[in-house]
């Protein structure tokens, strides 16, 4: 039988989730700071970076690569902000579970917000994929003949779409739960 933590109590799952979310939050903040700092750095050292990269390529890359890369960083920054928004909502939901009052309308709103944020992340991920494609095509061929590849997958994913659906449906369930709780509270 599963043990459900009483009000104010924290079982292993809740504690682990809280620590993990705290770590993710810090990681997202750190990554966002790096991305923000990289934007002026790209403006200042962009031409030097382009010259260095150009030495390894058959044709020197156009300067527009820097601006497209800056756009890439900005989209990535936007994704980081949405990740922070999602993690923050999840932390607040976790706190409401710890307080023993998870079935409320605020949590329904939080879930809906998280669903929308992840949907936007999915779309922005597609934009990142397109920007990478443009950057690779602008860089052209490398002198050693090896094709230029980028680690990581960008674009819409089935799991991401399922997560969005799950969150939207869960939001509805929480709304209904809040209705039922209100009814129960008004029953004498």
């Amino acid at each position, binding site marked *: 039988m599963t043990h459900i933590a009483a009000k104010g109590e924290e079982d292993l799952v809740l504690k682990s989730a809280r620590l993990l979310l705290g770590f993710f939050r810090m990681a997202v903040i750190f990554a966002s700071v790096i991305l923000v700092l990289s934007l002026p750095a790209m403006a200042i050292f962009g031409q030097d970076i382009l010259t260095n990269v150009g030495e390894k390529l058959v044709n020197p890359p156009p300067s527009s690569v820097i601006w497209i890369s800056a756009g890439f960083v900005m989209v990535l920054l936007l994704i980081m902000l949405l990740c922070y928004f999602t993690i923050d909502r999840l932390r607040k939901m976790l706190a409401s579970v710890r307080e023993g009052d998870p079935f409320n309308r605020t949590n329904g709103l939080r879930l809906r917000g998280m669903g929308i944020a992840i949907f936007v992340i999915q779309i922005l991920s597609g934009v990142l994929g397109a920007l990478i494609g443009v950057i690779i095509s602008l860089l052209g061929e490398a002198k050693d003949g090896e094709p230029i590849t980028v680690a990581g997958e960008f674009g819409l994913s089935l799991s991401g779409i399922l997560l969005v659906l799950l969150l939207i449906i869960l939001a509805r369930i929480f709304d209904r739960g809040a209705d039922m709780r209100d*009814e129960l509270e*008004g*029953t*004498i």
Partner: protein
Amino acid sequence: MAISIKLDDLLHDNRMTLTELAERVDITIANLSILKTGKAKAIRFSTLEAICKELQCQPGDLLTFEDAKDNETP
């Protein structure tokens, strides 16, 4: 609300206070006050049974239905 509670009248008829009734039916005064003021959304059969038993009345004596249309002036 179309359903109104006649708890005040029944308490008066039985010469009983809300506190006394609360003690007898084992319900908090706060909850009985919610019922008395018509703010309750629902009432359990067990609560209704206990109140009717203590006040020696029928559910119909406690609850009355007033159609909102009847009260409207033409």
